[in-house]
């Protein structure tokens, strides 16, 4: 069977681009879009895939990562999908890519102007764990009422002495909307702030997309006396020695010996030992 360039028909792609324009105009605000079934399951990144399909052109260079790595099964699968239906060039090098589709990480290599990050988002609603009804949360966003989230932070500090959110750390975008940064580690959140790259977020199953335009304020929620302080493995990378990158923890044997290596494989390869 033959498919249109980038799988979706042109009408569908245009509809998604229109929603994206709206999203860029209202940073951090969730925009409904007519998400479709893609040939990969919901939860695998159908939102990200649809966004990439909507914006990709023949001259683009695509990089796909999952857990920071280009060679993880899902990243390979999505890259193969676009190779098959769009035939665009792909790369593993962050600085060579024009579009980077990601699940759970932001590359360590600083992003540049003109690049587009496409995040795969499972739950676009940052408040869903505190208020499951979307009719309610939509009202809370409209009123800018984020007490629920701050109360959660307050109770964390009271119980645990710190904010115990390791990933999907809630952020305020452009001082207006509370946003889920997608389940990236809290460690990656500062990379979103004033990034020169355009950041797009797609949630296929929930039929929502949102965006952070270049050079936009993205500020993690915190208290003045309990500033945002992400946790990260202390050990340097066992392969490249980097002490500034985010690490995967690998269990080596039955005694529970651990090794820490860069989760960003491209960064790890380029980082001088």
């Amino acid at each position, binding site marked *: 069977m033959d498919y249109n360039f980038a799988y979706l028909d042109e009408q569908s792609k245009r509809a998604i681009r229109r929603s994206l324009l709206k999203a860029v105009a209202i940073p951090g605000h969730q925009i409904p879009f007519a998400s479709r079934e893609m040939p990969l399951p919901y939860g695998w990144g159908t939102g990200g895939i649809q966004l990439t399909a909507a914006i990709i052109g023949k001259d683009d260079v695509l990089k796909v990562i999952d857990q920071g790595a280009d060679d993880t099964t899902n990243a390979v699968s999505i890259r193969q999908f676009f190779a098959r239906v769009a035939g665009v060039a792909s790369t593993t090098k962050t600085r060579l890519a024009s579009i980077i589709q990601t699940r759970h990480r932001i590359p360590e290599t600083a992003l540049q102007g003109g690049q587009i990050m496409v995040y795969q988002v499972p739950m676009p609603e940052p408040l869903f764990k505190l208020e499951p009804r979307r009719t309610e949360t939509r009202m809370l966003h*409209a*009123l*800018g*009422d984020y*007490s629920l989230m*701050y*109360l959660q932070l*307050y*109770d964390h*500090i*009271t*119980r645990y002495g710190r904010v115990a959110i390791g990933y999907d750390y809630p952020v305020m975008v452009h001082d207006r909307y509370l946003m889920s940064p997608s389940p990236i580690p809290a460690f990656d959140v500062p990379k979103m702030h004033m990034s020169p790259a355009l950041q797009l977020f797609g949630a296929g199953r929930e039929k929502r997309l949102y965006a952070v335009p270049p050079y936009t304020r993205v500020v993690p929620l*915190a*208290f*003045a*006396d*309990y500033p945002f302080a992400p946790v990260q493995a202390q050990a340097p990378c066992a392969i490249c020695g980097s002490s500034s990158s985010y690490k995967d923890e690998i269990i080596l044997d039955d005694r529970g010996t651990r090794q820490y290596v860069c989760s960003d494989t491209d960064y790890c390869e380029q980082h001088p030992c």
Partner: protein
Amino acid sequence: MLTSSSQTHTPTPTTAPGPAIIAQSLHFRFGSQMVLRDVSLEVFPGEVLAIVGESGSGKSTLLNLLYGNLQPCQGSVHAIGNAGLQPLASLSQQTLRQLQRSRWGYVCQNPRDALRMAISASGNIIERPMAMGLRHYATLRQEARHWLEKVEIDPARLDDLPGTFSGGMLQRLQIARTLISQPALLYLDEPTSGLDVSVQAALLDLLRKLVSNEQMAVLLVTHDLAVARLLAQRIAVMRRGEIIEAGLADQVLDDPRHPYTQLLVSSVLPA
């Protein structure tokens, strides 16, 4: 009927000279049924107005109209906002909500309806200042402790979940959570009626202390004339959606004019 008694009763305003809320000729209907008819009132800072009446007399509906949760089909409500008295009908939903959560306070009969039961007691108390932009944990905590003491709850209960509190304590918690923002306008909807008599007395005592210290304008809805006598300077008696008698509390309770009020007083407050 205009029930303003500003001619006879002169409050001693310190900050704002005029009333904190004015209702003019309010009408309200549910479907085809007229629930409120031509209700007018005003409340000054430092003053407690009790709206009394049997259940079904329309007093809770009136409170909801005055709070902005319901819109009258005729008449208007002006209440104190960020820039003096503002007509409620002109406020956006955002502004209304913001006023409700800062300049005004609402204490409802069942504290469980107002409290966040999954959040600690202290978290419940500091929600308002936090929503108003206070983002300093230690200060918030200090505030929480301060208010817990003010409503006479053991500070050791600071981080307990409300679910572990007694009914009276829950109501105190709701009061602390509401009064922390020092509202200019306070709505009390049957604040003690779910409680045992002994607990009620202590709570009323506490409410009287807190309210008189803060120069708040208070609207108290109650079916209990004893509660009204204890807290209110003025009383408005409602029957079938209308205010049938209003005036100074002692006057209304000791020398009721309207036969219905006479009945009410004689049945509840044996001389």
